[in-house]
């Protein structure tokens, strides 16, 4: 505690001094996510977005006239590894962590960041707990599962009223949270599911589960989980002759899903924010990405936006102190970024979440 006060004091006193010494040292920021493991594709998107955002900010003169030093950290979506990454980053006293990806990582990591005075903006963690139970330091530029589940649950209850629905989840903070919120919204709208059950992530054989769905004559599978298992389950369903429609959350918004599911993924639906690639504010950045043969899909622009919003807030209050930036983010918005104009609620959620349905057709996804 004493050391922390000393550190805070030291930070404060350097801020009070003219920016003489500061100009030389770069501001440390970090991007943390699953760079390895079964969600590595999403981690890769975050890394692409963060690297580009930092490069673009430096090209325009940095933040407060200082350079940025970005470190990429790997949590493999493992809560324990996320905590050790968080400790490491707190030790380096980074000004911002753009991350993590999995809610199961973001939530425990945010406690470490809160203790150590680090600002966290997640581009992807949608579990409500992340900001509900988080402190002053937790922000996200994506929506929340309760909003996402509300959209999915209402859609199922209205449009697919006569279909036999199964709800599956992988027991992760993200997956179960999403399935529960969807169930809640669906039941509230007067529709009951036939089956609600969990599966174990990380396996390859879901045939037993699929046969059970087939036995129950399921026509709609709502899946709270990640793309690997979603792809495998729908693939094995088609192999067994079960023609059900898969509906999932934002974790299915990656070409990896189609890679695994193949043609079986045709017609699968998922909820995601309206495509940020199509927003006018992102046009220039998207062009720059495409010129390098990178498709800024999924979380690329969200991570880019998270870094950009932080930089804008830091510039506005002429400080990178985490508490001051956090305060400014909540009170002095809206902030312009590739994501458009973003304002934050006192909890750190975006004020206007805009979930829409996407559908997979012939290996690409588009808004429905």
């Amino acid at each position, binding site marked *: 505690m004493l050391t922390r006060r000393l550190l805070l004091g030291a930070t404060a006193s350097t801020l009070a001094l003219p920016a003489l010494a500061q100009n030389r040292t770069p501001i440390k920021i970090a991007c943390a996510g699953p*760079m390895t493991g079964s969600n*590595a594709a999403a981690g890769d998107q975050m890394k692409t977005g963060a690297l580009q955002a930092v490069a673009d900010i430096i090209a325009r003169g940095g933040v407060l006239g200082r350079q940025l030093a970005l470190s990429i950290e790997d949590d493999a979506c493992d809560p324990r590894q996320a905590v050790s990454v968080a400790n490491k980053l707190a030790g380096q006293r980074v000004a911002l962590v753009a991350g993590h990806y999995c809610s199961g990582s973001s939530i425990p990591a945010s406690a470490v960041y809160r203790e150590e005075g680090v600002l966290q903006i997640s581009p992807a963690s949608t579990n409500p707990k992340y900001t509900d139970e988080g402190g002053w330091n937790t922000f996200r530029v994506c929506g929340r599962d309760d909003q996402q589940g509300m959209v999915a649950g209402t859609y199922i209850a209205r449009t697919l009223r006569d279909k036999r629905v199964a709800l599956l989840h992988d*027991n992760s903070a993200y997956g179960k949270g999403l399935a529960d919120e969807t169930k809640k919204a669906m039941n509230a709208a007067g529709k009951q599911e036939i089956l609600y059950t969990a599966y*174990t992530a990380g396996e*390859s054989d879901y045939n*037993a589960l699929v*046969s059970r769905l087939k036995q129950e004559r399921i026509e709609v599978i709502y899946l709270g989980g990640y793309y690997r298992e979603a792809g495998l389950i729908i693939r094995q369903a088609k192999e*067994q002759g079960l023609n059900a429609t898969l509906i999932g959350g934002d974790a299915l918004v990656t070409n990896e899903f189609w*890679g695994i599911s*193949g043609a079986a993924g045709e017609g699968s639906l998922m909820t995601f924010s309206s495509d940020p690639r199509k927003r006018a504010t992102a046009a220039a950045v998207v062009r720059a990405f495409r010129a390098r043969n990178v498709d800024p899909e999924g979380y690329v622009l969200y991570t880019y936006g998270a870094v950009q919003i932080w930089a804008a807030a830091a510039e506005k209050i002429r400080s990178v102190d985490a508490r001051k930036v956090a305060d400014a983010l909540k009170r002095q918005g809206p902030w312009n970024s590739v994501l458009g104009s973003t304002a934050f609620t006192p909890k750190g959620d975006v004020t206007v979440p805009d979930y829409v349905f996407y559908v997979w057709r012939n290996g690409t996804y588009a808004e429905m």
Partner: protein
Amino acid sequence: MAYALQQLINGVSLGMIYGLIALGYTMVYGIIGMINFAHGDVFMVGAFISLITMLLLGLGGGAAGPGALLLVLLAAMAATALYGYTVERVAYRPLRGSFRLAPLISAIGMSILLQNYVQVAQGARSKPIEAPVPGGITLMESAGFTVQLSYVQILIVVLTLAVLAGFTVLVTRTPLGRAMRACEQDRKMAALLGIDTDRVISLTFIIGAALAAVAGCLYLLRYGVIDFYIGFLAGVKAFTAAVLGGIGSLPGAVLGGLLIGLIETFWSAYFSAQYKDVAAFGILILTLIFMPTGLLGRTEVEKV
């Protein structure tokens, strides 16, 4: 009825893959009394080599002929056998004669090494292919429920039983098998009688790795998606199968694999998919309490 039959098919084909991997554990244990914890990862390497061979032959995009598949299988077996040999030569042979736990720890190290090597060389992402053996037959249909049996599932069962039969013959009827059994009973005595025990042990590892490659290839054909981490879970399940069936016994390994596959499947079918591992391991514990050497294991006679 139809439902139970479908789940039986699911369980048997899953169990046979476990059994095929378990054969490798059981063979190595039978000969040198060591658990080769890297075996699951050798299986994973086998799956990757199958995938690479398939892509080299231009088979990534769909159906493949039996000749091409045989070629993939043989290439995977050959290359994986080389890995098996190298692992034994590098990690286990230098430790032969040292205390019992040394090769065990070395094996765990080897397992981590192989995982990380594949992760670095091939990337961490899942590698999917389109089903090379698509289609199957509809066995029966009742009340709108069709029972599907895919060609890959038939292939898995046939190949596993053929491999089991082949190795039973190898161990009981050939000079190499005799040498293997001699090493199993008393390595020092076997050496005194002119058996090159190092060579026999090397061959055991080579055969075990080739079996793992068969399993890896079948796994790829069945699920179409592999990554560097599949060896861990499959290895744990197969090891459990080997212990359940009686470690050291060839038919025991396949029987154990079959049981684990069936328990998992039927538990998910009628109870909760979430706790199927609890069920499988619970039965393992019960079995070991009443039959400490496993279902088909022999009681070890303490030699004086």
